[in-house]
């Protein structure tokens, strides 16, 4: 006999303003199986939970339905409440009458009717619920950090400092990421390398940290606490264990035409190279596209000159499989392609550059050794014009709809640094809005205007064109309601940023979701900003959304603390909502095993009594509950209906369908 309690939450006025909660609790009181039905202002509050606990004991309830916000909000809360009152936590169902009802409907009558149907549906399902007990699994005490930029470095250091092993997988030959390419950082103008490279060295020297550079995540299997990850180590044609990073190979390499991607292709590098002086690991790598030996078989100079005998032209991609308890994704960003923005003349004029290119031009280790010169002729530019929001806040389909967040600040930084170093330079900035929320940020921008005399022009640029060697920047000056044309020597585009393209594949491998802009989706925009919907996977840095270095470091440390919290546990409770086969009706046809994405289903020949004292051997399926993740693919494939899913049984769902369709 069912003894169901129904608890209708007002959620302040969030629900009660549009749903007549009194009517809902009264209507539900008459449902078969319901013995207790009440409403209360905040069910999730201490008092509300106490009310539920008391009712469970007082009315000896066999299950409860809470009509409240989405189960994604408070299902866990109410399950704990039930458990505290001695009820199996899986005898709890939530009717989502806020997100699916009060918040989207205006008419009280309509919303109340729908709330009643949703509550009835939950009751109907609950009548078929069975107490479930979650199994336990162990935790592999090692974390994987994907991406070796500042986010990955910070997360790895924090986790390692807490005493857990960490592997960093970085697709480039060195860790350091985008931050390694920057010259100075806002709002304090520290030298980027000065604050980053010590952390890179810490990673290299930390006994708990292992760096897989020039490597990619190939396959991911398993689940929280028990991930199995295959890492692909790309052939770098140099034995990492032998290379001393002396650089002799680089000076001797005859192929020097390859573009230097670390310098944003502004200059070239040898086919065998170390990306930059402070690279970690400080090991050379051969670009197979440029290497004469690898392409034609002739040459081999680097091998001859290498004192450590580290060159290995026959090296192949190799794979390692490692186990992890948690994963941090920190894959970072890239500037967008400018092919849709030819009005700024980027493709046709060498002296139209992106901000990241400017970083390299201003960097002492960059292609011009830190002297700001025009890429076209090496001359010092006297008029420099910056254009902000290139590709950001663009819904026309050419760019990105979001604000890239960092451009206002770095443009102010660039403007300031140029005025500081070359006071004879005129610096103009075309802007739509200057967005500088943050500690000391607006002050920083104002310094650019007030102290350094940077000429900020409110308005967007319509066209950049070359006339007699000058870059004519034609745009709006909205304050003066004028169209201005500024003859400039250098034009810098504050190019929008987007998630690194590798993130799409990775998201599929990790079964985490990405949004329409390819940013990874956090579990909750406000309350779970570093977690993913997939347990055990955490996010850090721009892969989750545009952010600057301070925010990235903060998020990386937050992700690390989540990982540490997870790895500190010895056992994890599993999900009891897993598949199970009815051996009496299973025909052993194997269709279910063929659709299981986890290989959780196996077959065995079992003896069954068939009456008359006889037995027969039959092939039947069995599910490993620790491996099953509860998707339910097998239940639909099974023609005999022998396969079912705890918590989402066919009978339960059919009961829900019937309850909804009852007119």
């Amino acid at each position: 006999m069912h003894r169901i309690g129904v608890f209708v939450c007002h959620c302040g006025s969030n629900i009660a303003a549009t749903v007549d909660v009194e009517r809902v609790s009264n209507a539900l009181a008459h449902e078969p199986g319901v013995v207790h039905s009440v409403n209360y202002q905040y069910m999730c509050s201490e008092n509300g939970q106490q009310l539920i606990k008391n009712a469970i004991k007082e009315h000896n309830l066999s299950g409860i339905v809470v009509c409240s916000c989405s189960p994604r909000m408070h299902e866990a809360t109410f399950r704990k409440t039930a458990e505290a009152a001695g009820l199996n936590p899986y005898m709890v169902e939530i009717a989502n009458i806020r997100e699916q009802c009060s918040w989207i409907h205006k008419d009280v009558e309509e919303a109340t009717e729908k709330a009643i149907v949703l509550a009835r549906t939950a009751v109907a399902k609950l009548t078929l619920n069975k107490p479930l007990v979650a199994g336990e699994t162990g935790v592999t005490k090692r974390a994987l950090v994907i991406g070796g930029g500042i986010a990955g470095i910070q997360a790895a250091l924090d986790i390692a400092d807490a005493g857990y092993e960490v592997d960093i997988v970085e697709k480039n030959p060195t860790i350091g990421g985008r931050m390694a390419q920057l010259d100075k950082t806002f709002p304090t103008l520290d030298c980027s390398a000065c604050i980053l490279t010590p952390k890179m060295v810490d990673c290299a020297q930390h006994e708990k940290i292992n760096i897989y550079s020039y490597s990619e995540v190939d396959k991911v299997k398993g689940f929280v606490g028990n991930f199995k990850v295959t890492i692909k180590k790309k052939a770098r044609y140099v034995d990492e264990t032998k290379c001393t990073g002396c650089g002799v190979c680089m000076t001797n390499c005859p192929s020097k035409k390859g573009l230097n991607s670390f310098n944003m292709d502004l200059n070239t590098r040898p086919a065998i190279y170390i990306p930059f002086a402070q690279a970690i690991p400080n090991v050379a790598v051969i670009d197979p596209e440029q290497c004469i030996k690898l392409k034609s078989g002739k040459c081999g100079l680097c091998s001859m000159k290498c004192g450590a005998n580290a060159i290995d032209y026959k090296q192949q991609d190799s794979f390692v499989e490692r186990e992890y308890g948690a994963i941090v994704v920190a894959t970072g960003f890239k500037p967008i392609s400018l092919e849709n923005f030819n009005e700024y003349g980027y493709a046709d004029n060498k002296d139209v550059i992106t901000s990241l290119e400017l970083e390299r031009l201003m960097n002492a280790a960059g292609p011009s050794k830190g002297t700001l010169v025009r890429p076209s002729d090496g001359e010092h530019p006297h008029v420099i014009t910056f254009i902000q929001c290139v590709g950001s806040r663009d819904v026309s389909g050419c760019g990105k709809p979001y604000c890239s967040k960092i451009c206002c600040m770095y443009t102010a930084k660039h403007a300031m640094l140029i005025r500081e170093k070359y006071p004879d330079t005129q610096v103009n900035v075309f802007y739509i809005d200057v967005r500088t929320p943050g500690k000391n940020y607006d002050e920083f921008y104002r310094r650019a205007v007030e102290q350094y005399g940077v000429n900020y022009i409110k308005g967007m640029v319509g066209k950049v064109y070359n006339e007699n060697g000058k870059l004519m920047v034609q745009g709006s000056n909205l304050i003066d309601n004028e169209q201005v044309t500024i003859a400039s020597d250098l034009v810098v585009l504050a190019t929008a940023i987007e998630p690194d393209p590798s993130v799409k594949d990775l998201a599929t491998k990790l079964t985490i979701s990405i949004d329409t802009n390819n940013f990874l989706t956090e579990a909750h925009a406000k309350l779970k900003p570093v977690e993913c919907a997939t347990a055990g996977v955490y996010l850090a840095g721009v892969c989750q959304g545009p952010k600057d270095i301070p925010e990235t470091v903060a998020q990386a440390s937050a992700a690390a603390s989540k990982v540490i919290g997870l790895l500190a546990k010895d056992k994890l409770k599993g999900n009891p909502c897993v598949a199970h086969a009815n051996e009496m009706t299973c025909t052993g046809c194997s269709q279910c095993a063929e659709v299981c994405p986890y290989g959780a289903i196996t077959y065995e020949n079992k003896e069954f009594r068939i009456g008359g004292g006889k037995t027969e051997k039959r092939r039947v399926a069995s599910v490993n509950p620790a491996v099953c993740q509860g998707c339910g693919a097998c239940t639909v494939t099974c023609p005999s209906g022998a396969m079912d899913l705890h918590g989402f049984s066919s009978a339960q769902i059919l009961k829900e369908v019937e309850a909804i369709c009852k007119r």
Partner: protein
Amino acid sequence: MNNDMQLKSLIEMSATDVRKCMKCGKCSGRCPAFKEMDIKPHQFVTLLGQGKVEKLLASKAIWNCLSCLACVERCPRGVAPANVIEAVRTTVARMQGGDGITAEEIPAEVNEMIPQQLLVSAFRKYKK
């Protein structure tokens, strides 16, 4: 027609969502006839958004807009300022005495090179 109806008709004829405008001024930054416009392309969008019909209808810029659509092409928000200008121009041309060009003005202007298309189009554009 009263102001409200005229506004409604202008919005309808413009067939563009002026609320999407983020006031960046790119349209006016690109406009090749900017200096000849008493109301600038971005202002057409803003004024329509504000419902300032009279100001729009009094504009002389509608006769100087070249219909080159440069403002439409590069708008980051997918707004079409040229559509607003054309809606205003059509509205004015449809009004009594609103023609931007008359047949009488033409004979002196025609030279032997003038393409038919220019005449046809100009009359379509500027006259009721």
